[in-house]
Protein backbone atom coordinates (compact mmCIF):
# COMPACT_ATOMS: atom_id res chain seq x y z
CA UNK A 1 0.00 0.00 0.00
CA UNK A 2 2.87 2.37 0.74
CA UNK A 3 5.28 0.58 -1.55
CA UNK A 4 5.84 3.64 -3.73
CA UNK A 5 9.61 3.59 -3.72
CA UNK A 6 10.17 7.12 -4.98
CA UNK A 7 7.85 8.65 -2.37
CA UNK A 8 9.70 6.94 0.44
CA UNK A 9 13.05 8.00 -0.97
CA UNK A 10 12.05 11.63 -1.07
CA UNK A 11 10.94 11.35 2.54
CA UNK A 12 14.18 9.86 3.92
CA UNK A 13 16.14 13.13 4.40
CA UNK A 14 13.08 14.82 5.92
CA UNK A 15 13.46 12.70 9.06
CA UNK A 16 16.65 14.62 9.76
CA UNK A 17 15.66 17.94 8.19
CA UNK A 18 12.33 18.42 10.00
CA UNK A 19 13.61 18.21 13.59
CA UNK A 20 16.85 20.03 12.73
CA UNK A 21 14.98 22.89 11.08
CA UNK A 22 12.49 23.01 13.92
CA UNK A 23 15.22 23.31 16.54
CA UNK A 24 16.54 26.41 14.74
CA UNK A 25 13.04 27.78 14.12
CA UNK A 26 12.17 27.54 17.81
CA UNK A 27 15.21 29.66 18.64
CA UNK A 28 14.37 32.17 15.90
CA UNK A 29 10.66 32.79 16.47
CA UNK A 30 9.74 31.28 19.83
CA UNK A 31 12.62 32.20 22.09
CA UNK A 32 10.44 34.15 24.51
CA UNK A 33 7.06 32.69 23.54
CA UNK A 34 6.63 29.54 25.55
CA UNK A 35 3.31 28.45 24.08
CA UNK A 36 4.61 28.82 20.52
CA UNK A 37 7.70 26.74 21.35
CA UNK A 38 5.53 24.01 22.85
CA UNK A 39 3.20 24.02 19.84
CA UNK A 40 6.06 23.88 17.33
CA UNK A 41 7.67 20.99 19.20
CA UNK A 42 4.45 18.97 19.33
CA UNK A 43 3.74 19.76 15.66
CA UNK A 44 7.18 18.53 14.62
CA UNK A 45 6.81 15.29 16.58
CA UNK A 46 3.32 14.78 15.15
CA UNK A 47 4.71 15.25 11.63
CA UNK A 48 7.44 12.69 12.38
CA UNK A 49 4.86 10.17 13.61
CA UNK A 50 2.84 10.57 10.41
CA UNK A 51 5.97 10.39 8.22
CA UNK A 52 7.39 7.30 9.88
CA UNK A 53 3.96 5.63 9.75
CA UNK A 54 3.75 6.27 6.01
CA UNK A 55 7.16 4.67 5.37
CA UNK A 56 5.95 1.29 6.61
CA UNK A 57 6.77 -1.27 3.94
CA UNK A 58 9.00 1.12 2.03
CA UNK A 59 12.71 0.75 1.57
CA UNK A 60 15.39 2.46 -0.41
CA UNK A 61 18.66 4.33 -0.45
CA UNK A 62 18.70 8.11 -0.68
CA UNK A 63 21.76 9.71 -2.26
CA UNK A 64 22.40 13.07 -0.61
CA UNK A 65 22.78 15.82 -3.20
CA UNK A 66 22.20 13.32 -6.00
CA UNK A 67 25.80 12.01 -5.90
CA UNK A 68 26.08 8.29 -6.71
CA UNK A 69 27.10 5.83 -4.00
CA UNK A 70 30.91 5.72 -3.85
CA UNK A 71 31.19 9.52 -4.05
CA UNK A 72 28.20 10.82 -2.13
CA UNK A 73 26.62 10.13 1.23
CA UNK A 74 23.91 7.49 1.49
CA UNK A 75 20.93 7.27 3.79
CA UNK A 76 19.47 3.80 4.04
CA UNK A 77 15.91 2.86 4.88
CA UNK A 78 14.55 -0.64 5.43
CA UNK A 79 12.04 -2.39 7.70
CA UNK A 80 14.36 -2.18 10.73
CA UNK A 81 14.89 1.58 10.40
CA UNK A 82 11.14 2.08 9.97
CA UNK A 83 10.51 0.24 13.23
CA UNK A 84 13.07 2.37 15.10
CA UNK A 85 11.82 5.63 13.55
CA UNK A 86 8.27 4.78 14.64
CA UNK A 87 9.42 4.08 18.20
CA UNK A 88 11.42 7.33 18.41
CA UNK A 89 8.61 9.48 17.05
CA UNK A 90 5.75 7.94 19.05
CA UNK A 91 7.60 8.08 22.37
CA UNK A 92 8.92 11.53 21.44
CA UNK A 93 5.39 12.74 20.73
CA UNK A 94 4.04 11.54 24.09
CA UNK A 95 7.01 13.09 25.86
CA UNK A 96 6.51 16.46 24.12
CA UNK A 97 2.88 16.51 25.23
CA UNK A 98 3.98 15.72 28.77
CA UNK A 99 6.70 18.38 28.74
CA UNK A 100 4.11 21.16 28.27
CA UNK A 101 3.04 20.92 31.90
CA UNK A 102 6.25 19.60 33.38
CA UNK A 103 8.69 22.12 31.92
CA UNK A 104 6.67 25.14 33.15
CA UNK A 105 8.74 24.99 36.35
CA UNK A 106 11.96 25.71 34.48
CA UNK A 107 13.25 28.93 32.95
CA UNK A 108 14.15 29.32 29.24
CA UNK A 109 12.10 26.37 28.08
CA UNK A 110 12.67 27.28 24.43
CA UNK A 111 16.24 26.01 24.86
CA UNK A 112 14.83 22.76 26.18
CA UNK A 113 12.69 22.29 23.09
CA UNK A 114 15.56 23.15 20.75
CA UNK A 115 17.84 20.63 22.45
CA UNK A 116 15.04 18.06 22.43
CA UNK A 117 14.64 18.50 18.67
CA UNK A 118 18.42 18.19 18.21
CA UNK A 119 18.39 14.94 20.16
CA UNK A 120 15.65 13.58 17.88
CA UNK A 121 17.69 14.78 14.85
CA UNK A 122 20.70 12.85 16.08
CA UNK A 123 18.75 9.68 16.75
CA UNK A 124 16.95 9.75 13.38
CA UNK A 125 20.29 10.42 11.68
CA UNK A 126 21.96 7.46 13.38
CA UNK A 127 19.06 5.20 12.44
CA UNK A 128 19.14 6.26 8.78
CA UNK A 129 22.91 6.66 8.31
CA UNK A 130 24.30 4.62 5.43
CA UNK A 131 27.95 5.12 6.25
CA UNK A 132 30.07 4.85 9.37
CA UNK A 133 31.29 8.42 9.61
CA UNK A 134 27.86 10.03 9.36
CA UNK A 135 26.70 7.54 11.92
CA UNK A 136 29.43 8.88 14.19
CA UNK A 137 28.51 12.52 13.49
CA UNK A 138 24.81 12.00 14.25
CA UNK A 139 25.77 9.98 17.30
CA UNK A 140 27.65 13.02 18.59
CA UNK A 141 24.73 15.33 17.78
CA UNK A 142 22.40 13.15 19.87
CA UNK A 143 25.02 12.77 22.60
CA UNK A 144 25.83 16.50 22.96
CA UNK A 145 22.12 17.33 23.11
CA UNK A 146 21.58 14.67 25.78
CA UNK A 147 24.58 15.83 27.88
CA UNK A 148 23.14 19.33 28.03
CA UNK A 149 19.59 18.07 28.63
CA UNK A 150 20.79 16.05 31.63
CA UNK A 151 22.34 19.22 33.07
CA UNK A 152 19.26 21.31 32.20
CA UNK A 153 18.17 22.11 35.75
CA UNK A 154 21.73 23.17 36.76
CA UNK A 155 21.36 21.81 40.31
CA UNK A 156 24.19 20.00 42.13
CA UNK A 157 23.21 16.46 41.17
CA UNK A 158 22.35 17.31 37.58
CA UNK A 159 25.72 18.94 36.90
CA UNK A 160 27.59 16.11 38.56
CA UNK A 161 25.67 13.46 36.61
CA UNK A 162 26.14 15.35 33.37
CA UNK A 163 29.90 15.63 33.92
CA UNK A 164 30.17 11.92 34.57
CA UNK A 165 28.05 11.24 31.49
CA UNK A 166 30.07 13.58 29.24
CA UNK A 167 33.44 12.11 30.32
CA UNK A 168 32.36 8.49 29.75
CA UNK A 169 30.45 9.50 26.61
CA UNK A 170 33.48 11.22 25.05
CA UNK A 171 35.66 8.27 25.98
CA UNK A 172 33.32 5.86 24.19
CA UNK A 173 33.02 8.20 21.20
CA UNK A 174 36.82 8.26 20.91
CA UNK A 175 36.83 4.44 20.87
CA UNK A 176 34.15 4.42 18.17
CA UNK A 177 36.11 6.95 16.07
CA UNK A 178 39.24 4.75 16.39
CA UNK A 179 37.15 1.85 15.11
CA UNK A 180 35.94 3.96 12.18
CA UNK A 181 39.55 4.90 11.34
CA UNK A 182 40.63 1.23 11.44
CA UNK A 183 37.77 0.13 9.21
CA UNK A 184 38.51 2.88 6.70
CA UNK A 185 42.21 2.05 6.73
CA UNK A 186 41.58 -1.63 5.96
CA UNK A 187 38.58 -1.65 3.66
CA UNK A 188 39.12 1.77 2.06
CA UNK A 189 35.44 2.67 2.29
CA UNK A 190 32.97 3.94 4.86
CA UNK A 191 29.74 2.91 3.17
CA UNK A 192 28.10 0.18 5.25
CA UNK A 193 27.10 -1.86 2.20
CA UNK A 194 30.60 -1.70 0.67
CA UNK A 195 32.28 -2.56 3.98
CA UNK A 196 30.04 -5.60 4.22
CA UNK A 197 31.02 -6.66 0.68
CA UNK A 198 34.76 -6.25 1.32
CA UNK A 199 34.54 -8.18 4.57
CA UNK A 200 32.57 -10.94 2.90
CA UNK A 201 35.34 -11.20 0.26
CA UNK A 202 38.40 -11.02 2.49
CA UNK A 203 37.07 -12.38 5.78
CA UNK A 204 37.75 -10.92 9.22
CA UNK A 205 41.44 -10.32 9.77
CA UNK A 206 42.93 -9.13 13.05
CA UNK A 207 42.68 -5.33 12.60
CA UNK A 208 38.99 -5.76 11.67
CA UNK A 209 38.46 -7.87 14.78
CA UNK A 210 40.04 -5.06 16.81
CA UNK A 211 37.69 -2.55 15.15
CA UNK A 212 34.70 -4.78 15.88
CA UNK A 213 35.83 -5.06 19.52
CA UNK A 214 36.15 -1.26 19.74
CA UNK A 215 32.61 -0.92 18.38
CA UNK A 216 31.24 -3.44 20.89
CA UNK A 217 32.87 -1.54 23.77
CA UNK A 218 31.93 1.88 22.40
CA UNK A 219 28.30 1.07 21.70
CA UNK A 220 28.21 -1.03 24.88
CA UNK A 221 28.91 2.24 26.72
CA UNK A 222 26.16 4.00 24.79
CA UNK A 223 23.62 1.28 25.57
CA UNK A 224 24.88 0.83 29.17
CA UNK A 225 25.64 -2.90 29.11
CA UNK A 226 26.94 -4.04 32.44
CA UNK A 227 30.67 -3.52 32.61
CA UNK A 228 30.10 -0.14 30.93
CA UNK A 229 26.98 1.03 32.77
CA UNK A 230 28.41 3.39 35.41
CA UNK A 231 26.99 6.60 33.94
CA UNK A 232 23.37 5.51 33.45
CA UNK A 233 22.08 5.27 37.04
CA UNK A 234 23.32 8.83 37.65
CA UNK A 235 22.46 10.48 34.35
CA UNK A 236 18.94 9.14 33.75
CA UNK A 237 17.42 9.95 37.16
CA UNK A 238 19.03 13.40 37.42
CA UNK A 239 17.57 14.70 34.17
CA UNK A 240 14.10 16.34 34.02
CA UNK A 241 11.44 13.59 33.71
CA UNK A 242 10.69 14.06 29.98
CA UNK A 243 14.40 13.75 29.24
CA UNK A 244 14.76 10.66 31.46
CA UNK A 245 11.90 9.12 29.51
CA UNK A 246 13.61 9.87 26.20
CA UNK A 247 17.05 8.72 27.38
CA UNK A 248 15.91 5.45 28.90
CA UNK A 249 13.05 4.91 26.48
CA UNK A 250 14.72 5.45 23.13
CA UNK A 251 18.22 6.96 23.22
CA UNK A 252 20.05 3.93 24.61
CA UNK A 253 18.33 1.80 21.97
CA UNK A 254 18.62 4.08 18.94
CA UNK A 255 22.33 4.87 19.41
CA UNK A 256 23.23 1.71 21.34
CA UNK A 257 21.42 -1.54 20.70
CA UNK A 258 20.32 -0.68 17.16
CA UNK A 259 23.81 0.23 15.95
CA UNK A 260 25.32 -2.77 17.71
CA UNK A 261 22.81 -5.10 16.03
CA UNK A 262 23.20 -3.43 12.65
CA UNK A 263 27.01 -3.60 12.69
CA UNK A 264 27.18 -7.11 14.13
CA UNK A 265 24.64 -8.76 11.85
CA UNK A 266 24.51 -6.68 8.66
CA UNK A 267 28.05 -5.34 8.31
CA UNK A 268 30.68 -7.44 10.05
CA UNK A 269 28.80 -10.72 9.81
CA UNK A 270 28.35 -12.40 13.16
CA UNK A 271 30.47 -15.33 14.32
CA UNK A 272 29.72 -17.86 17.06
CA UNK A 273 32.28 -16.32 19.44
CA UNK A 274 30.77 -12.85 18.95
CA UNK A 275 27.31 -14.26 19.67
CA UNK A 276 28.62 -15.86 22.83
CA UNK A 277 30.05 -12.52 23.95
CA UNK A 278 26.68 -10.82 23.32
CA UNK A 279 24.96 -13.53 25.39
CA UNK A 280 27.39 -12.98 28.29
CA UNK A 281 26.96 -9.20 28.16
CA UNK A 282 23.19 -9.66 28.08
CA UNK A 283 23.01 -12.08 31.01
CA UNK A 284 25.41 -9.97 33.09
CA UNK A 285 23.35 -6.81 32.46
CA UNK A 286 20.08 -8.61 33.23
CA UNK A 287 21.24 -10.03 36.54
CA UNK A 288 23.37 -7.13 37.85
CA UNK A 289 20.86 -4.44 36.80
CA UNK A 290 17.95 -6.38 38.31
CA UNK A 291 19.68 -7.08 41.63
CA UNK A 292 20.87 -3.47 42.01
CA UNK A 293 17.35 -2.17 41.26
CA UNK A 294 15.79 -4.06 44.18
CA UNK A 295 17.68 -2.06 46.82
CA UNK A 296 16.98 1.44 45.50
CA UNK A 297 14.94 4.01 47.45
CA UNK A 298 14.78 6.66 44.72
CA UNK A 299 12.03 5.82 42.18
CA UNK A 300 13.86 7.15 39.14
CA UNK A 301 17.14 5.50 40.16
CA UNK A 302 15.29 2.21 40.54
CA UNK A 303 13.84 2.58 37.06
CA UNK A 304 17.31 3.44 35.69
CA UNK A 305 18.79 0.20 37.05
CA UNK A 306 15.78 -1.61 35.67
CA UNK A 307 16.63 -0.19 32.22
CA UNK A 308 20.08 -1.82 32.41
CA UNK A 309 18.41 -5.11 33.26
CA UNK A 310 15.87 -4.90 30.42
CA UNK A 311 18.54 -3.91 27.89
CA UNK A 312 20.21 -7.16 28.93
CA UNK A 313 17.12 -9.08 27.77
CA UNK A 314 17.40 -7.49 24.31
CA UNK A 315 21.12 -8.23 23.97
CA UNK A 316 20.52 -11.81 25.15
CA UNK A 317 17.83 -12.18 22.48
CA UNK A 318 20.21 -10.86 19.80
CA UNK A 319 23.01 -13.09 21.09
CA UNK A 320 20.94 -16.22 20.52
CA UNK A 321 21.40 -15.53 16.81
CA UNK A 322 18.18 -17.34 15.84
CA UNK A 323 15.29 -15.58 14.07
CA UNK A 324 13.03 -16.22 17.06
CA UNK A 325 15.58 -14.65 19.42
CA UNK A 326 15.82 -11.56 17.24
CA UNK A 327 12.02 -11.25 17.10
CA UNK A 328 12.03 -11.39 20.91
CA UNK A 329 14.81 -8.81 21.16
CA UNK A 330 13.16 -6.35 18.77
CA UNK A 331 9.72 -6.88 20.31
CA UNK A 332 11.19 -6.26 23.76
CA UNK A 333 12.96 -3.15 22.43
CA UNK A 334 9.65 -1.68 21.21
CA UNK A 335 7.81 -2.71 24.38
CA UNK A 336 10.52 -1.40 26.68
CA UNK A 337 10.50 2.00 24.98
CA UNK A 338 6.77 2.22 25.73
CA UNK A 339 6.64 1.07 29.33
CA UNK A 340 9.94 2.51 30.51
CA UNK A 341 9.14 5.98 29.20
CA UNK A 342 5.68 5.61 30.77
CA UNK A 343 7.21 4.71 34.14
CA UNK A 344 9.64 7.64 34.02
CA UNK A 345 6.75 9.98 33.20
CA UNK A 346 4.84 8.52 36.19
CA UNK A 347 7.85 9.13 38.41
CA UNK A 348 8.03 12.66 37.06
CA UNK A 349 4.34 13.25 37.86
CA UNK A 350 4.90 11.95 41.40
CA UNK A 351 7.89 14.27 41.82
CA UNK A 352 5.93 17.17 40.30
CA UNK A 353 3.07 16.97 42.79
CA UNK A 354 4.83 15.68 45.93
CA UNK A 355 8.27 17.22 45.44
CA UNK A 356 10.12 14.00 46.35
CA UNK A 357 11.32 10.83 44.67
CA UNK A 358 12.12 8.99 47.89
CA UNK A 359 9.93 5.90 48.22
CA UNK A 360 10.04 6.10 52.03
CA UNK A 361 8.29 9.47 52.03
CA UNK A 362 5.58 8.45 49.56
CA UNK A 363 2.45 6.34 49.89
CA UNK A 364 -1.24 6.10 49.07
CA UNK A 365 -0.97 8.17 45.91
CA UNK A 366 -3.68 6.12 44.19
CA UNK A 367 -6.41 8.12 45.90
CA UNK A 368 -4.92 11.49 45.02
CA UNK A 369 -3.46 10.87 41.55
CA UNK A 370 -5.75 8.29 39.91
CA UNK A 371 -4.33 8.62 36.38
CA UNK A 372 -0.72 8.25 37.51
CA UNK A 373 -1.68 5.33 39.74
CA UNK A 374 -3.59 3.46 37.04
CA UNK A 375 -1.05 4.04 34.25
CA UNK A 376 1.89 3.14 36.47
CA UNK A 377 0.12 -0.09 37.40
CA UNK A 378 -0.16 -0.91 33.69
CA UNK A 379 3.50 0.04 33.16
CA UNK A 380 4.69 -2.03 36.12
CA UNK A 381 2.70 -5.09 35.13
CA UNK A 382 3.97 -4.79 31.55
CA UNK A 383 7.64 -4.55 32.52
CA UNK A 384 7.27 -7.35 35.07
CA UNK A 385 5.87 -9.56 32.32
CA UNK A 386 2.39 -10.38 33.61
CA UNK A 387 0.24 -12.15 31.01
CA UNK A 388 -2.17 -9.81 29.28
CA UNK A 389 0.45 -7.08 28.78
CA UNK A 390 3.11 -6.63 26.10
CA UNK A 391 6.15 -7.34 28.28
CA UNK A 392 4.93 -10.86 28.91
CA UNK A 393 4.91 -11.76 25.22
CA UNK A 394 8.37 -10.41 24.43
CA UNK A 395 9.92 -12.11 27.46
CA UNK A 396 8.07 -15.32 26.57
CA UNK A 397 9.53 -15.23 23.06
CA UNK A 398 13.05 -14.68 24.43
CA UNK A 399 12.68 -17.59 26.88
CA UNK A 400 11.26 -19.81 24.12
CA UNK A 401 14.16 -18.84 21.85
CA UNK A 402 16.63 -19.81 24.62
CA UNK A 403 14.96 -23.22 24.92
CA UNK A 404 14.83 -23.62 21.15
CA UNK A 405 18.58 -22.94 20.97
CA UNK A 406 19.25 -25.45 23.76
CA UNK A 407 20.38 -22.83 26.32
CA UNK A 408 18.35 -24.10 29.28
CA UNK A 409 20.48 -22.23 31.85
CA UNK A 410 19.88 -18.92 30.07
CA UNK A 411 16.13 -19.60 29.93
CA UNK A 412 16.13 -20.23 33.70
CA UNK A 413 18.11 -17.03 34.35
CA UNK A 414 15.70 -15.03 32.16
CA UNK A 415 12.70 -16.36 34.11
CA UNK A 416 14.41 -15.63 37.44
CA UNK A 417 15.25 -12.06 36.40
CA UNK A 418 11.59 -11.60 35.38
CA UNK A 419 10.62 -12.57 38.92
CA UNK A 420 13.15 -10.08 40.32
CA UNK A 421 11.61 -7.45 38.02
CA UNK A 422 8.18 -8.26 39.41
CA UNK A 423 9.59 -7.91 42.94
CA UNK A 424 10.98 -4.39 42.52
CA UNK A 425 7.97 -3.18 40.55
CA UNK A 426 5.66 -4.43 43.31
CA UNK A 427 7.86 -2.60 45.79
CA UNK A 428 7.29 0.68 43.90
CA UNK A 429 3.55 0.03 43.67
CA UNK A 430 3.21 -0.82 47.33
CA UNK A 431 5.40 1.95 48.75
CA UNK A 432 4.27 4.78 46.47
CA UNK A 433 0.73 4.04 45.41
CA UNK A 434 -0.94 1.61 47.81
CA UNK A 435 0.33 2.14 51.39
CA UNK A 436 -1.29 4.70 53.69
CA UNK A 437 -1.01 8.35 52.65
CA UNK A 438 1.57 10.14 54.84
CA UNK A 439 0.41 13.16 56.83
CA UNK A 440 2.65 15.52 54.82
CA UNK A 441 0.88 14.65 51.55
CA UNK A 442 -2.74 15.10 52.72
CA UNK A 443 -3.60 18.05 50.48
CA UNK A 444 -2.06 17.02 47.17
CA UNK A 445 -3.19 18.42 43.84
CA UNK A 446 -4.06 16.11 40.96
CA UNK A 447 -1.63 15.71 38.07
CA UNK A 448 -2.06 18.41 35.36
CA UNK A 449 -4.14 17.48 32.27
CA UNK A 450 -1.41 17.34 29.59
CA UNK A 451 0.69 15.05 31.79
CA UNK A 452 -2.30 12.74 32.23
CA UNK A 453 -2.93 12.73 28.49
CA UNK A 454 0.68 11.70 27.72
CA UNK A 455 0.63 8.93 30.33
CA UNK A 456 -2.70 7.57 29.08
CA UNK A 457 -1.31 7.62 25.53
CA UNK A 458 1.69 5.47 26.48
CA UNK A 459 -0.42 3.13 28.63
CA UNK A 460 -2.73 2.55 25.66
CA UNK A 461 0.41 1.90 23.63
CA UNK A 462 1.47 -0.81 26.11
CA UNK A 463 -1.88 -2.57 25.81
CA UNK A 464 -2.03 -2.14 22.02
CA UNK A 465 1.44 -3.62 21.55
CA UNK A 466 0.33 -6.83 23.22
CA UNK A 467 -2.16 -7.22 20.34
CA UNK A 468 0.80 -7.50 17.93
CA UNK A 469 1.14 -11.03 19.26
CA UNK A 470 -2.00 -12.13 17.46
CA UNK A 471 -0.42 -11.46 14.08
CA UNK A 472 1.86 -14.47 14.66
CA UNK A 473 4.39 -15.60 17.23
CA UNK A 474 7.26 -15.91 14.80
CA UNK A 475 6.62 -12.80 12.76
CA UNK A 476 4.49 -10.19 14.48
CA UNK A 477 3.44 -7.26 12.30
CA UNK A 478 6.39 -4.91 11.51
CA UNK A 479 8.75 -6.76 13.85
CA UNK A 480 8.83 -9.87 11.69
CA UNK A 481 10.02 -7.94 8.64
CA UNK A 482 12.52 -5.99 10.75
CA UNK A 483 13.92 -9.27 12.01
CA UNK A 484 14.30 -10.53 8.43
CA UNK A 485 16.59 -7.56 7.73
CA UNK A 486 18.87 -8.61 10.59
CA UNK A 487 18.87 -12.32 9.89
CA UNK A 488 19.45 -11.81 6.14
CA UNK A 489 23.15 -11.42 7.03
CA UNK A 490 25.56 -8.96 5.44
CA UNK A 491 24.26 -6.27 3.09
CA UNK A 492 24.49 -7.23 -0.54
CA UNK A 493 25.61 -4.31 -2.73
Amino acid sequence: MFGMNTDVQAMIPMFVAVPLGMSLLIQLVARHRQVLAETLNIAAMMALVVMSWSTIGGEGIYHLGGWPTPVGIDMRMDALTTLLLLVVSIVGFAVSVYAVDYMRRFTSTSHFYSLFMLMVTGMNGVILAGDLFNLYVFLEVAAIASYSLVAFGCAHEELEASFKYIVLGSLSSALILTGVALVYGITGTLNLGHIAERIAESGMDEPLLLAFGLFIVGFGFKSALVPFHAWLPDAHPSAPAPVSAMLSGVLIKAIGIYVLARLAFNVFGISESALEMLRWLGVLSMVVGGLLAVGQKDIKRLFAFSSISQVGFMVLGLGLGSPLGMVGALYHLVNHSMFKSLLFLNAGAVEYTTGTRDLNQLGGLNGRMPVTGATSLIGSMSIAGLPPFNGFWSKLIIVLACIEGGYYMLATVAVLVSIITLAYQLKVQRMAFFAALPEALKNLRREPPMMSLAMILLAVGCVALSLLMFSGLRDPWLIGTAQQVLSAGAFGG
Partner: protein
Amino acid sequence: MIYSLCLLLILIGLYGVIVSRQTLKIVVSLLIMNHGVHLMLLLVGYRKNGSPPIVDPGTTIADFAAGAVDPLPQAMVLTSIVIGLGVLALMVALCVRLYERYGTFDVTEIRRLRG
Protein backbone atom coordinates in the same frame (compact mmCIF):
# COMPACT_ATOMS: atom_id res chain seq x y z
CA MET B 1 55.87 2.35 14.05
CA ILE B 2 54.32 5.77 13.75
CA TYR B 3 50.95 4.27 14.58
CA SER B 4 52.31 3.20 17.96
CA LEU B 5 53.03 6.87 18.73
CA CYS B 6 49.31 7.58 18.17
CA LEU B 7 48.50 4.68 20.46
CA LEU B 8 50.88 6.19 23.04
CA LEU B 9 49.04 9.52 22.82
CA ILE B 10 45.69 7.75 23.26
CA LEU B 11 46.98 5.80 26.24
CA ILE B 12 48.44 8.96 27.85
CA GLY B 13 45.01 10.55 27.53
CA LEU B 14 43.29 7.47 28.95
CA TYR B 15 45.74 7.40 31.88
CA GLY B 16 45.01 11.07 32.54
CA VAL B 17 41.26 10.51 32.54
CA ILE B 18 41.57 7.65 35.00
CA VAL B 19 44.03 9.12 37.54
CA SER B 20 43.21 12.85 37.46
CA ARG B 21 41.32 14.30 40.39
CA GLN B 22 40.71 17.72 38.88
CA THR B 23 37.80 18.15 36.47
CA LEU B 24 39.81 20.41 34.16
CA LYS B 25 42.68 17.92 33.98
CA ILE B 26 40.20 15.24 32.96
CA VAL B 27 39.00 17.55 30.19
CA VAL B 28 42.57 18.13 28.95
CA SER B 29 43.29 14.37 29.05
CA LEU B 30 40.20 13.70 26.94
CA LEU B 31 41.47 16.31 24.49
CA ILE B 32 44.85 14.53 24.23
CA MET B 33 43.14 11.21 23.68
CA ASN B 34 40.90 12.68 20.99
CA HIS B 35 43.87 14.16 19.15
CA GLY B 36 45.64 10.82 19.25
CA VAL B 37 42.64 9.38 17.41
CA HIS B 38 42.63 12.30 14.97
CA LEU B 39 46.32 11.76 14.14
CA MET B 40 45.67 8.10 13.53
CA LEU B 41 42.79 8.96 11.22
CA LEU B 42 45.09 11.34 9.29
CA LEU B 43 47.83 8.70 9.03
CA VAL B 44 45.36 6.27 7.47
CA GLY B 45 45.08 8.57 4.45
CA TYR B 46 48.76 9.59 4.35
CA ARG B 47 51.07 8.52 1.57
CA LYS B 48 54.82 9.00 1.61
CA ASN B 49 55.92 11.84 -0.71
CA GLY B 50 52.28 12.27 -1.79
CA SER B 51 51.06 15.50 -3.31
CA PRO B 52 48.32 17.64 -1.78
CA PRO B 53 44.85 16.44 -2.84
CA ILE B 54 44.11 19.34 -5.20
CA VAL B 55 43.43 18.73 -8.89
CA ASP B 56 45.49 21.25 -10.92
CA PRO B 57 44.31 22.07 -14.45
CA GLY B 58 47.22 20.05 -15.93
CA THR B 59 46.91 16.74 -14.04
CA THR B 60 44.72 13.88 -15.16
CA ILE B 61 42.54 11.93 -12.76
CA ALA B 62 44.79 8.87 -13.09
CA ASP B 63 47.90 10.87 -12.08
CA PHE B 64 45.95 12.39 -9.24
CA ALA B 65 44.83 9.00 -7.94
CA ALA B 66 48.39 7.68 -8.20
CA GLY B 67 50.15 10.58 -6.49
CA ALA B 68 47.85 12.44 -4.09
CA VAL B 69 47.18 11.68 -0.44
CA ASP B 70 43.66 10.55 0.45
CA PRO B 71 41.59 13.69 1.15
CA LEU B 72 38.69 11.89 2.83
CA PRO B 73 40.33 11.30 6.25
CA GLN B 74 41.37 14.97 6.30
CA ALA B 75 37.76 16.01 5.81
CA MET B 76 36.69 13.60 8.53
CA VAL B 77 39.30 14.91 10.98
CA LEU B 78 38.15 18.45 10.29
CA THR B 79 34.56 17.45 11.09
CA SER B 80 35.67 15.57 14.15
CA ILE B 81 37.69 18.55 15.44
CA VAL B 82 34.60 20.75 15.15
CA ILE B 83 32.53 18.18 17.07
CA GLY B 84 35.33 17.99 19.64
CA LEU B 85 35.23 21.75 20.04
CA GLY B 86 31.52 21.61 20.80
CA VAL B 87 32.00 18.88 23.40
CA LEU B 88 34.99 20.75 24.86
CA ALA B 89 32.98 23.97 25.26
CA LEU B 90 30.18 22.07 26.97
CA MET B 91 32.63 20.25 29.27
CA VAL B 92 34.38 23.47 30.34
CA ALA B 93 31.01 25.13 30.93
CA LEU B 94 30.04 22.20 33.13
CA CYS B 95 33.33 22.51 35.05
CA VAL B 96 32.64 26.20 35.70
CA ARG B 97 29.09 25.48 36.85
CA LEU B 98 30.34 22.65 39.06
CA TYR B 99 32.85 25.06 40.61
CA GLU B 100 30.05 27.54 41.29
CA ARG B 101 27.96 24.88 43.06
CA TYR B 102 30.58 22.87 44.92
CA GLY B 103 33.40 25.42 45.22
CA THR B 104 35.98 22.88 44.04
CA PHE B 105 37.43 21.25 40.94
CA ASP B 106 38.24 18.06 42.85
CA VAL B 107 36.11 15.15 41.66
CA THR B 108 36.55 13.27 44.95
CA GLU B 109 34.65 16.10 46.67
CA ILE B 110 31.95 16.31 43.99
CA ARG B 111 29.95 13.28 45.02
CA ARG B 112 26.37 13.59 46.02
CA LEU B 113 25.24 10.70 43.82
CA ARG B 114 25.87 7.29 45.26
CA GLY B 115 24.73 3.70 44.92
